């Protein structure tokens, strides 16, 4: 057997998503020794799942909330029958059990005296027209009742996908409507990988930061810029990251990017040798906080970021303008927003920006299907928005010769030739004075001179603007 990592098993104190028979998902912090109530589906003991591998489903089967690993029987094939719904009329009396009977069954089930399957079977047997239903309808009936009465739950491991799905379904505005597919594309476009250095402005409660951190596996740096008192990276806590991964996430307040003139270092404020007791503790606290800010500043100003990812409530251009200089060449720049319209102006801004190449505005479309043997079809409802991505590549703009017309080029060549001639004349004059000049050096120098000439002519502003125009046309 392959060795298990700590992340492969369910650990006490971690966040766990519990999927219930109704397909609803509940998020809990798993405390050792506690009982976890799943409402009408019963209660289980946390210790029964702590230390076990993720992935299994459990069945609550006894009055003492005992659990056992549930082995699903698998989905049964539907055999075609001659039944159809011609004989079926909407008749509440076709279920022979009364409401009270069912309630009684339910409470027996809760006490653990009846399994979910037994209850469903009883319902089925006392259903007058069950046999007349089509095979599809029968299967659907059993599935529907199963969702109500089965007592099977599945602990789900928090991952970028499962956490994203949980919040997208439950409270999409919390994560600014970013859906699993859109997030996945953001991850691809960002080329996030182990060891990279990312600059992020994340107002999705840390959903994006969490997904990026997961893909970096504890190596590299994410610098998150935030406004307000704290970076609200609430989602990060659901991911059960180890310390190594948490350490890759650094933050810096927009207000602290530049050191305010009146900011003093803790040493400037107090003389550490004079401090005792509480004051000393306070000093060390301040020093720690100060060092964190200093470290983040250093990371920012060193630049060379491997991607810039912006998912902010503020105008994206205003952020890009400030942060683009810190991004290395040939690196992705990505803006996420919950609405496409908010990115339209940014997109036109990007096209005008000579440091950005090929902006592209995309939306994703995702459809889920029911897959059952012989019963596969798209689901009845699908997702609406999942947000929009605007992606581009940071480039290093340089005025190039391509922008010149023929006349300009000829003029430039002439100028270069003159410069070369001039230089050669000067060198000859020099070599005449110092007889030790090596002959072999001259051609090299001449070439260099030519290059110099070229650069001076090409830094002309008009040429530059024309070259940008050219670039855009392509």
């Amino acid at each position: 057997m392959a060795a298990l990592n700590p992340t492969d098993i369910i650990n006490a104190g971690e966040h766990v998503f519990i999927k219930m028979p109704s397909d609803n998902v509940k998020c809990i912090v798993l405390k050792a020794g506690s009982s976890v109530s799943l409402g009408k589906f019963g209660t289980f003991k946390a210790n029964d799942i702590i230390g076990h591998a993720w992935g299994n489903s459990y069945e609550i089967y006894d009055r003492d909330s005992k659990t056992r690993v549930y082995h699903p029987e698998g989905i049964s094939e539907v055999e075609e029958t001659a039944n159809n719904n011609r004989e079926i009329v909407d008749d509440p009396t076709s279920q022979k059990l009364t409401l009270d009977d069912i309630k009684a069954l339910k409470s027996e089930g809760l006490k653990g005296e009846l399994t979910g399957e037994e209850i469903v079977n009883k319902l089925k047997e006392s259903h007058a027209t069950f046999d007349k239903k089509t095979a599809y309808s029968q299967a659907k009936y059993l599935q529907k009742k199963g969702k109500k009465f089965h007592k099977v739950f599945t602990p789900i491991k928090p991952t970028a996908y499962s956490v994203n799905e949980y919040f997208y379904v439950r409270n999409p505005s919390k994560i600014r409507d970013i859906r699993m597919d859109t997030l996945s594309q953001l991850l691809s476009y960002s080329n996030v990988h182990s060891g990279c250095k990312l600059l992020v402005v994340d107002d999705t409660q840390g959903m994006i930061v969490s997904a990026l951190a997961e893909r970096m596996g504890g190596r590299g740096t994410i610098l998150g810029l935030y406004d307000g008192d704290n970076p609200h990276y609430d989602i990060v806590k659901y991911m059960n990251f180890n310390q190594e991964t948490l350490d890759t996430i650094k933050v810096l307040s927009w207000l602290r990017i530049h050191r305010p003139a009146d900011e003093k270092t803790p040493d400037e404020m107090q003389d550490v040798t004079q401090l005792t007791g509480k004051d000393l503790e306070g000093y060390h606290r301040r020093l720690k906080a100060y060092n964190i800010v200093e470290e983040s500043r250093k990371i920012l100003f060193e630049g060379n970021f491997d991607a810039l990812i912006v998912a902010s409530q503020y105008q994206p251009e205003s952020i890009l303008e400030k942060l683009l200089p810190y991004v290395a060449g040939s690196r992705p720049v990505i803006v996420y927003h919950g609405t496409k319209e908010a990115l339209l102006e940014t997109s036109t801004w990007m096209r005008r920006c000579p440091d950005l190449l090929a902006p592209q505005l995309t939306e994703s479309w995702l459809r889920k299907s029911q897959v059952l043997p012989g019963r596969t079809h798209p689901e009845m409802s699908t997702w609406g928005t999942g947000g929009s991505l605007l992606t581009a590549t940071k480039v290093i703009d340089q005025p190039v010769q391509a922008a010149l017309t023929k006349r300009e080029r000829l003029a430039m060549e002439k100028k270069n030739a003159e410069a070369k001639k001039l230089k050669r004349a000067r060198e000859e004059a020099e070599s005449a004075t110092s007889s030790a000049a090596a002959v072999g050096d001259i051609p090299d120098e001449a070439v260099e001179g030519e290059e110099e000439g070229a650069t001076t002519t090409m830094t002309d502003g008009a040429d530059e603007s024309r070259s940008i125009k050219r670039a855009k046309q392509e």
Partner: protein
Amino acid sequence: MSETAVEKQSFATYKKNNTIEEGDNVVMYLSKENMSIIRVKDGEYFNCKFGSYKHSDMIGLEYGTKLGSNTGRGFLYLLYPTPELWTLVLPHRTQILYIADISFVMNYLNLKPGMSMIESGTGSGSFSHSIARTLAPHGHLYTFEYHQERVNAAKKEFEEHGLSDMVTLRCRDVCKDGFELEDKVDAIFLDLPAPWEAVASAKKAFKQNKVGKICTFSPCIEQISRTVTALNEHGFVDIQMYECLIRFNEIRVIPMWTIDEAMEKQRAIEKKRKRATPRVVPADNNNAQEGESSSSSGHINKSAKVEPSVDDSNQSSAAATPNSTTGSEMEDSVSTTVSTPVIGSETTASAAEAEPRERIEPKNVVVTRLPAEQRGHTSYLMFATFTPATQGPSLTETKAAAAAAAASSSAPAK
């Protein structure tokens, strides 16, 4: 160039110095539709219709730099080859996966550094590069392909792209011969004509005591149907199916006149026309000289039709004259005979031409539209979960065993 300092390039990560060196793969970006990849070698040239580019000019430049051609006719951008760019430039040997499916599958399978994964078939290696990048540096990709030539080509690419340490490529028909891997991987991706034939072997390949995820990628619903049966039969749970598409928006800036503005324009034109009629100047001649400004009511429609895309909008707005109010200004302009170069003779027509153009700046609106044609279906992405409880005999095996047990023990039952 000191040879010792050259940093080996890998598609799985960036180079620390971010500098183009001899032997690097570099993406030549000419436009979105026109990209290609080269290996930099001193003395060679990259030629395309936008000019000729010396490899030696690229060496030492930072990635992302804009480079002008030697002939001075064009330029291109030198981009670092990422898996995403590779997908756009690679030589197609098969149908390939694109970013929408690649991204979603990787996210659903929860790929991250350090994992082990199976991919079959390798095809043109589009997905392989993304997987390798995501599993790097300590993870491993086992990729299988039954077509020998494709194996050879992919092997060469993995080597040239600095991925061979973390990719094991085998020429093998996994449907017939299985993966021959046991208790080894965290995730499996099957892009095969008959994925159901590989499910039994896939089950063995998963690390047996932990959760694992499988994805099958099939264009046809019939394939999905058979695969579901096989997955179900072998105890996989949580079978789900998705389709994912990306819509690429085109962005345009379109002018939007109010009806009042449009009428104001019209009125100005009419006024001009009225003034022009008594004169004996042939109308055709006048039109030809003046271009759009006097071309009667067609003007609005014409400029509205232009729909400048964003690129041009700077130009056009810069070229436009400041918004002038109509009427009264005319006298001024006559007296000063300003601006517009009058090509015609000093006939009376010149008075009309000298009139400032009645440009009314419309409100520009940024809009998006979807291209008329785009990808509508790639494949169905079917996912299932392997759980520690999945291991053990398949359903039919269990049933057969149960039946056998029942038969043998039927008589001496309790």
